């Protein structure tokens, strides 16, 4: 069977993303927010700040501190998961911070903090990438100065095929998973992890494929950010 005919369990081609929906400014009480649906993933991200750091001893004198909290709701998985923060939540919070930090002008806000809260409402594989994608949109919505957006997407391998944007099944039963976060305009990778076994050539192909996916997601992030304003412009035109 050729690469063209082979289809994934959910009917996607090897290089096909899941359907993505991004919305910015969904929470009126947060400084910035975003909601993302990536296939069956549903994640809401809120951003607060830059604001005064508490406790004060954690503040840095020369730059702002970015704090990311990643959390999966108890009802986001089957079976129900314990509501407290797990070791995995802590790790993903940390990698989100590493992925977003290079994009933000933290040095403009000494002694302050920027808080990012990602809440996974429904999970289906690839939530760390979807969280980073939504967090970048929420940071822009909060009016925080950014060098570039950050888009994130995974690539991996299942049944010997290199594939883009793994879902939960492919993540669990596949051979490897490579999440990548990427700043498209600056052409910089800000997150690179790998879980599983890959030949070095395959890893290279996975990274290239994931970056290709990030570029497609980037276009959707741009549209989501602009939509809020373009809708108003159209509304005003209609009113005249």
């Amino acid at each position, binding site marked *: 069977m050729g690469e063209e005919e082979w289809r994934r369990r959910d009917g996607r081609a090897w290089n096909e993303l899941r359907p993505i929906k991004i919305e910015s400014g969904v929470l009126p009480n947060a400084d910035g927010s975003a909601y993302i649906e990536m296939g069956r993933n549903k994640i809401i991200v809120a951003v607060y700040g830059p604001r005064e750091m508490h406790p004060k001893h954690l503040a840095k004198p020369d730059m702002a501190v970015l704090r990311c909290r990643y959390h999966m709701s108890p009802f986001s998985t089957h079976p129900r998961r314990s509501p407290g923060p797990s070791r995995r939540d802590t790790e993903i919070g940390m990698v989100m911070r590493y992925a977003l930090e290079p994009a933000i*002008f933290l040095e403009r806000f000494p002694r302050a903090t920027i808080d990012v809260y990602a809440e996974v409402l429904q999970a289906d594989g690839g939530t760390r990438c979807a969280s980073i994608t939504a967090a970048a949109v929420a940071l822009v919505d909060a*009016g925080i100065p950014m*060098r570039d*957006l950050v888009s994130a997407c995974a690539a991996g391998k299942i049944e010997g095929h290199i594939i883009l944007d793994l879902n939960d099944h492919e993540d669990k039963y596949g051979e490897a998973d490579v999440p990548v976060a990427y700043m498209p305009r600056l052409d910089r990778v800000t997150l690179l992890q790998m879980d599983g076994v890959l030949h070095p050539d395959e890893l290279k192909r996975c990274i290239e494929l994931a970056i290709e996916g990030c570029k497609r997601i980037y276009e959707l992030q741009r549209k989501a*950010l602009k939509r809020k304003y373009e809708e108003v412009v159209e509304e005003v035109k209609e009113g005249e």
Partner: protein
Amino acid sequence: MSAHFENRALVVPGDILYEGRIRAGNNTYRMGGKVYATHVGLVEYGRGVVSVIALEAGYTPMVGDTVIGYVVDIDVGQWIVDINAPMNAVLKVPDAMEVPFTPDLAMTDFLDVGDTIVAKVVDLDRRRTPILSILGGELGKVDEGLVVEMTPSKVPRLIGKKGSMVGMILKETGCRLVIGENGRILIQCADREDEELIVSIIRKIEREAHTTGLTNRVHDYIMRMRGVKNG
């Protein structure tokens, strides 16, 4: 040497605005001979400068700004004030009252935690902490009215060219407005309905800040709302 967008086009952070020699203005940065945007907003190509009018941005305190703040804490000889900035501001006793500070001065009788003040940023200290003053006309503790918040970068839109927008609103409603550069606006009206009208006007201006002909539309809006109320 070329512009990458039309004037007043909507841009997002990371968009390349210009390649070549040009000054990088507000909400932009330069890297490797290119000028990029740092905020969502409308790009503006001026004479030898490219800048972005931000549609979402926080408040950065500047000397001379009028701000509306909430007292959040009291220290020895100073009040700590939340002014919607990355760091809290301080109001020292000599900048608040004519009486000199003595250890037995009852500071809470003058200003207490939870009080709202209209203040001026008079200085930034070496840690860039804003120093406030409430000495002078129009400044001081607020006893009545309603405070609403809007995106600080859209405050110039509420004021309008040479105060045209706010002047029109004041004329039509007869209310008193104190506009803080930090995005907080104090509304004082004769009755509650007028206050609610002003709040809805501010929400409209905030939502439609990036469109043209806003002053006329707001004027029509006030007339329409007034018509509903009277008719």
